């Protein structure tokens, strides 16, 4: 694989709350190459969004702090950059699409102003050229009559349309890495499918590396090349999509897969994962999934499992796979 666009090494981000320090991201490492899409999957609170925010260094101040690790963008460590330099990287090299389209656009400014703003900053265009480029961007995300839309205000657009505008802004530079944080969760299904197709198309056209955060396994199957399953701030399993769907190594991944209805499968009860998501402030020693793990062993409760390679490009953190 060529030099990865983005490489995260042993990233730790802690959150100080009233109930003690939460290790939101507890040693995460992964990398994504050009035109490749990595899916970040996990229940809410598993640290997937915090990981993305850590990459663009926008963790909610003053509560959160990036404690340690490296984030290499084209080999350059973002954590070592000054705030001014980061500000120039955001949007130009690393773009992001947020979850809720209804509130991603500033309600009191016109769509045009919000789209023109990044284009002017990245390409130094002014006046009519700027207007034309903005319209082109909207057209690129398949928004009908872009000129009219530029004059409209966010509350006059539908959810899907708004998410497309956000998409247009994301590819304004175009960036090297696009992070999509559950972009379609609040869209209804038909719009969802169109938007995912659009993202795919944009990725191919601009050869973007993409991190796709979601808890919807169906989307993962369609969009991602590789998947990382996160649980309690750690990646418990990462590997090519096909392998995880067909031969999940980690019990949590397996449980996730079994909780998704399959076409044509026999009609038996879907298994739900019992127990509660872990309290990140008071993580038990050993494997965080132990309390809810079907094949928990004595060792799991005592010692945190290391990362073990299951096959080429497919690794997991689970004692089951440790050679005895």
């Amino acid at each position, binding site marked *: 694989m060529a030099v990865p666009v983005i490489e995260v090494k042993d990233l730790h981000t802690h959150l100080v709350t009233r109930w003690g320090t939460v290790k939101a991201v507890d040693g995460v490492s992964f990398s994504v190459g050009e035109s490749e899409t990595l899916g970040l999957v996990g229940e809410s609170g598993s640290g997937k969004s915090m990981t993305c925010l850590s990459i663009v260094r926008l963790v909610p101040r*003053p509560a959160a702090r990036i*404690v340690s690790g490296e984030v290499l963008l084209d080999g350059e460590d973002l954590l070592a950059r000054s705030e001014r330099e980061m500000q120039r990287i955001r949007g130009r090299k690393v773009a992001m699409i947020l979850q809720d389209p209804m509130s991603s656009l500033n309600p009191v400014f016109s769509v045009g102003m919000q789209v023109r703003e990044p284009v002017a900053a990245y390409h130094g265009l002014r006046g009519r050229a700027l207007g034309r480029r903005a319209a082109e961007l909207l057209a690129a995300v398949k928004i009908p009559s872009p000129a009219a839309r530029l004059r409209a205000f966010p509350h006059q657009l539908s959810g899907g349309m708004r998410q497309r505008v956000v998409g247009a802004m994301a590819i304004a530079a175009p960036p090297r890495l696009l992070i999509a944080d559950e972009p379609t969760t609040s869209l209804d299904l038909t719009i969802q499918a169109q938007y995912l197709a659009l993202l795919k198309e944009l990725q191919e056209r601009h050869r973007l590396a993409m991190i796709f955060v979601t808890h919807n396994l169906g989307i993962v199957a369609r969009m991602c090349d590789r998947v990382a399953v996160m649980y309690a701030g750690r990646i418990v399993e990462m590997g090519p999509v096909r392998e995880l769907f067909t031969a999940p190594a980690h019990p949590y991944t397996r449980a996730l897969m079994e909780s998704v209805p399959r076409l044509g499968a026999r009609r038996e009860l879907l298994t739900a994962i019992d127990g509660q998501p872990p309290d990140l402030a008071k993580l038990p020693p050993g494997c965080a999934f132990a309390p809810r793990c079907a094949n928990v062993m004595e060792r799991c409760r005592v010692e945190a499992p290391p990362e073990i390679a299951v096959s080429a490009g497919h690794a997991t953190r689970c004692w089951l796979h440790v050679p005895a």
Partner: protein
Amino acid sequence: MAAESANATLALPGVEPTVGARRARRRWPVISTSIIAAFVLVALLAPLVSPADPYEQTLRLRFRPPVWDERGSWQHPLGTDRLGRDLLARIVWGSRVSLAAGVITVLLASAFGAAVGLVAGYYGGRVDAFLMRVTDATLSFPVILLALILAVTVGPSFTNVVIAIAVILWARYARVIRGQVLTLMELDFIAQARVAGAGAGRIIMRHLVPNTMNTLVVLVTLQVGYVIILEASLSFLGAGIPPPTPAWGSMIAEGRDFVTSAWWVSFFPGLAILLVVLAFNLLGDWLRDTLDPKLRQL
């Protein structure tokens, strides 16, 4: 706080540790409440705490400076006023009058205002329109003018000052509470209560009042300071709490011509007002931050 993770914290540029911030918000505003408690205590125990009779005049000892001045004496630690009365005694007794004026006025105004707000918000339609027009009319009637008219008509007195301010102030509460009730009415639990056959009275008392109580508490604390200041301005115009009753506002007004020659006459009551009003405002801010961050109206 939990100990940092094993590997030492990387002093990463642009990611600065901020410890103070997290603790500040939670802490109960100790300073404000202790100031208020102190003054309330002084007001309650005025007879015991006061060094002298606030009314007793000795013209000979007129404009005596505070004790640390060479002409000052421990008999009048904070000095004496224009009629030779002990300043400390008058401030102590004055706390009773000024705090009472502030608190009573605000309670009266908030009770009446909240009632109007609740009814207007709940019933809506013509009732709401009418009540809101009365509120608008009241809001456009200047407080100071009404106090002046009352003072001139029936003579300035404690009750007149309280009435004059309360009669205007309620309109602000009415408008804020009504706004809140309108938003609450949109929520489903009101509809459910109605479906369950609850009458207007029950709904207002069990649902609307508790939910607007936070806002009311915040408004009340913020307005006590405002009323005490307003009383001082009225005294300046001769329509505040009348002499010889010791009240901070009138004491400052009396001392205003001697800002240089006898600075203490208006300085110390001014300091008392500053502390109390500051305390109430900061308490109000804190209450709003914790109880009702959404409160965007004053």
